[in-house]
């Protein structure tokens, strides 16, 4: 083998790339949706309105991030004393008692109870990231790894320094805890030292201010809560992986211009965009010279959004088939509780 063979092999792999036509059509459709999300700066005062048909009060959703941002939730004194809505909280099962100097925790993800446990915690120092991944054990993942014992737990190690996932720990009950070091270098030693410091947690949480309210009966599946960012600018989300398609609920600071149809959502002006199957790719598809006609595959997401003030955008996005009324009801009946604890995030 020589350089030319390697170049030839890489070119052969690259030749397998899909035709750009349908991909361009999907990008165009997605960017169209993205552009529709820009602008429409709703006055923060409007946020205090009540939600039509639901008991959820937007004014109780203290998501206002002013400039300079404020961590403490500003609560409107005009709000009626209804029980406070609550978001979603998932206890995290493990923590690392040791991290290299300078790393701060920046992200937590966790599936909600009732689904297979999958949790992730990430620490960051500059562009370097360390992850803990807790997930059901698969034998394939452990194949070829050397067994060992670290911190009293059974461990599996890789001898490949290029592999970010250096250590897997037996986390009991059929679970594995993976330790991944993004930065190349002495990954093995760092990962093993972190592994030795792993201990049960149960106190830390992955908490978001969001909770799913009404959903069509056909949309069931695993829900993952996620929060990441800094104490002054963070994003939170709930992601439902359903057999019918994915549904994302997100709340994050963002400046964007929505262009969807105007609609009243949760009692305030918002927008609704209805996606669907891509049927017409227009000029983006190059007709083939032979073989079956080209088709556009894929689905454009439907979305509904409102601004909660301080450029905090609440958005429901779904690739599942939903009607406009269903999408609006999902948005209207979302629970938006008090701000989650973000004291664990870096400043």
């Amino acid at each position, binding site marked *: *083998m*020589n*350089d030319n*063979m*390697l*170049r*030839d*092999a*890489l*070119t*052969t*792999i*690259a*030749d*397998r*790339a*899909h035709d*750009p036509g349908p*991909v*361009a059509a*999907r*990008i*165009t459709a*997605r*960017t169209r949706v*993205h*552009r529709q999300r820009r602008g429409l700066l709703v006055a923060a005062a409007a946020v205090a309105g009540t939600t039509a048909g639901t008991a959820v009060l937007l004014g109780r959703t203290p998501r206002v991030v002013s400039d300079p941002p404020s961590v403490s939730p500003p609560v409107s004194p005009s709000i009626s004393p209804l029980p406070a809505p609550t978001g979603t909280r998932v206890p995290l099962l493990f923590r690392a008692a040791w991290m290299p100097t300078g790393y701060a925790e920046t*992200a937590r993800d966790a599936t909600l109870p009732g689904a297979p446990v999958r949790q*992730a915690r*990430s620490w960051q120092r500059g*562009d370097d*990231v360390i*992850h803990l*991944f807790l997930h059901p054990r*698969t034998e*394939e*993942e452990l*194949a070829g790894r050397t067994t060992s014992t670290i911190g009293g737990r059974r461990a599996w190690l890789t001898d*490949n*320094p*290029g*592999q*970010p996932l250096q250590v897997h720990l037996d986390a009991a009950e059929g679970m594995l805890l*993976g330790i*991944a070091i*993004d930065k*190349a270098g002495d990954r093995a030693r760092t990962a093993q030292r972190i592994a030795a410091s792993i201990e049960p947690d149960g106190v830390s949480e992955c908490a978001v201010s969001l909770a799913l309210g009404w959903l069509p009966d056909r949309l069931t599946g695993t829900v993952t809560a996620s929060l990441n960012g800094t104490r002054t600018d963070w994003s939170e989300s709930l992601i439902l992986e359903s057999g019918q398609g994915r549904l994302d609920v997100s709340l994050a600071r963002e400046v*964007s211009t929505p262009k969807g149809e105007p609609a009243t959502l949760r009692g305030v002006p918002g927008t609704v965009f209805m996606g669907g199957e891509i049927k017409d790719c227009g000029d983006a598809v190059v007709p083939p010279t032979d073989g079956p006609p080209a088709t556009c595959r894929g689905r454009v997401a439907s979305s509904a959004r409102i601004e909660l003030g301080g450029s905090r955008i609440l958005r429901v996005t779904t690739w599942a088939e939903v009607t406009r009324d269903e999408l609006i009801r999902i948005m209207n009946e979302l629970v938006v509780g008090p701000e989650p604890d973000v004291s664990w995030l870096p400043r």
Partner: protein
Amino acid sequence: MTFEEFVVARLGALLRYATALTCDPHQADDIVGEVMVRANGRWRRIAAMEQPEAYVKRMVLNEFLSVRRRWARVVPMSHEQLDDRAGGVDPYPEHHDRDDLIRRVATLPPRQRAVIVLRYFEGHTHDEIADLLGCRASTVRAHASTALARLRVEATTVGEIR
């Protein structure tokens, strides 16, 4: 250049680049799609750069190397699947050596594969690759050396990489 003009002109090259990185055209579509949507949101700034395509390619590379993304998606492949993958790449069964090489490229760890692709497919120098990956040139050389050893490239034929 508008975003739309960039898509028309460069999407094919970006898909080829991402396919070489991932060894999987479906994942390449996914990565390039994700990156292009993000690039669209900041296109004015990207278009004002000296080399917008280089910036977008860097975004593709970062997306490919994102551990979090791989954690969410990675499904271990069996030897049969790897065989199928190689078979799908090369329709000529007589090219056994190339099949073998493609199989081995597909099994390289992402950073090593990225170095090989950036060096041999994109034609970057080690210093340029170090800049793209945010590491030292010596690290790049180490990755290249390990990767080439895995690919069983004979040392005598790769003098230029030293």
